[in-house]
């Protein structure tokens, strides 16, 4: 079997029936992608799932592969998904979120601007549930975007479309809150920035992100944990970057 264009991966843990909603959203985006001529592999990875979540994936359509793992670590779950799929690009969806149905097609188009080097993000993260807000994500090519922002906060989350190499060469680090480290997705963004990937926005695409009372992000923020060391956090890397900019000016 030849390699698929995209692996659409949904990850779940304790979402219960909400995962059915997300699965339906994913299926609609997959249908749009296939209608556009793309080949799509669909994988669901359930990490230590509770019974309701297992039940939510019992009657998935034919062709959807369901895997159960026991990592208790979202980064490891994504790394595992990378290892068991065979596609040029991967797109992740959390088990209680939704995509607009154009996400896979439009993100794939954006990735095609520089094949293998572009990571596509939705234009908007639309939060619902416990929070109601809109977050328009940054496009790295926007001349007003200051990449130094990435030293202070995470500009993007992990629910992007990325070439396989971005995941294979830069697997997610361990989540280690007890050691003071978390924000694996932030760290992954730093590492891919250093490696030269371009984080671009796919216009008119939206991720609907369900905010429960306390998200993993909020728990990490309150715990005063930090992202793991990265070259991008060091002034030395920025000096060299300044030098590169000066010499190219």
């Amino acid at each position: 079997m030849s390699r698929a264009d995209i692996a659409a991966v949904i990850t779940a843990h304790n979402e219960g029936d909400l995962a059915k909603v997300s699965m339906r959203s994913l299926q609609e985006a997959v249908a749009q992608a296939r209608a556009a001529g793309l080949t799509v592999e669909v994988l669901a990875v359930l990490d230590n799932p509770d019974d309701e979540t297992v039940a939510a994936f019992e009657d998935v359509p034919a062709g959807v592969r369901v895997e159960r793992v026991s990592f208790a670590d979202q980064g490891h779950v994504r790394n595992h998904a990378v290892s068991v799929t065979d596609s040029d690009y991967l797109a992740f969806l959390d088990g209680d979120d939704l995509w607009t149905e154009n996400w896979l097609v439009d993100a794939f188009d954006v990735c095609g601007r520089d094949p293998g080097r572009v990571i596509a993000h939705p234009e908007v993260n639309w939060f619902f549930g416990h929070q109601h807000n809109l977050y328009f994500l940054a496009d790295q090519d926007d001349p007003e975007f200051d990449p130094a922002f990435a030293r202070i906060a995470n500009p993007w989350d992990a629910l992007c479309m990325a070439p396989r190499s971005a995941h294979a060469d830069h697997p997610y680090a361990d989540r280690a809150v007890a050691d003071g480290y978390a924000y694996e997705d932030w760290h992954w963004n730093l590492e891919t920035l250093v490696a030269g990937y371009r984080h671009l926005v796919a216009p008119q695409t939206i991720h609907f992100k369900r905010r429960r009372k306390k998200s993993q992000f909020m728990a990490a923020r309150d715990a005063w944990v930090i992202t793991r060391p990265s070259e991008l956090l060091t002034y030395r890397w920025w000096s060299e970057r300044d030098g590169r900019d000066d010499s190219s000016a």
Partner: protein
Amino acid sequence: MGWFGSGGLRRAKRQRTDRVRMVTHPAFYLAQAGVAGFEAPETLDVDGTVEHFAAVGQAAGARVSALFQPDCYLSRAQEAGLEVTGDPFEHWLEVGWDHRVVPTPLFDEQWYAAADTGARAGEWGFEHFLREGCYRKGRDAGPFAPNYGDNEAMRARERHDPVLMTGMLNHAERYDLRRTSWLEEGVAKGRERLDSLDDPRVVALVAKAAAIEPEIMDEGPGRWVAWLPHLHPNVVTATAAEDVRRSLPVDRADAVVYFPDDGPHDDALRVVEELRSAGATTVVAVTTGPRSRPPEGIVTADLRPRLTRLDRRQRLRVALDVLRGLAPAHAVAVDNVLGTRVLARHGRALRTEMTVAGRLEGRALDLDAMVEVQRVRDEQ
């Protein structure tokens, strides 16, 4: 005699005076000095600013208020059917105000009216915002307001120093503040972004998603909006951090010492000597307290001018950024509260990257205990 009569004229004059004073923001006005071609003292209080503006700044086209933007006023006055002649600011004070024309993109009247702001029934929301609301941190001024800043300056209302000043003065060197600012540009462009969600294709896509999960259409108390690169609470933090980095002659240190917030440097200088004796060639001093002094003869990251408008969490991030940026083998805080906080709060992780130590009032800090306290708090 004009149409007011002599009593009416006095009332009108008093009203104008009251209004000018209410909208005056000294820090914003003073930020335009030099660029706008006029000179001003380094600091002015509210009344001094009003006087200086009348005598000097107004003729130079300066804005005395961060919440009056001439172009916005001209556009909105026209929408309200008002013909503006002469100085737009004077026209607003005399005419536009009474027609309740909001002369800034930073304030959303409907949003403010829907929030519990304490405005009296029938009171013009913008006047309430000018008098009180703009000095309180919060989200009431509009959907973008959570990004205006979260730090109430000391005696903000007395000094007429609105929360949104942090964003107004971000990258001030790039803008002609007489006309616009980082924040006003950001909100205008953010509004365009928001309006782009009304595109028929996007509306249809959202409707399809809502057919799967109707809850996404629930707006709750109001849907606030952030967007990079302009409107995000940490944009100003990143600007401050980058200013610090660019101010330094080194990009790597063997040791970083947070110097005392106040008082003599003797203990900190002894620490520097100890570190040098132990082989640290490049030692960088970090100063953070408003009363601290940069030490002589040591490369110094002077964070003081960059921290003044940041809240506690933002200050911590800048102080952490300089530490991880310089990637030292050793970090020490000597009578420095912010530095101590960085090492205690993030000590678990930092101790895998460097040695950390602290002294406060001559005594060694038990950072192990402080880290443990933080760990227990986290677990709770």
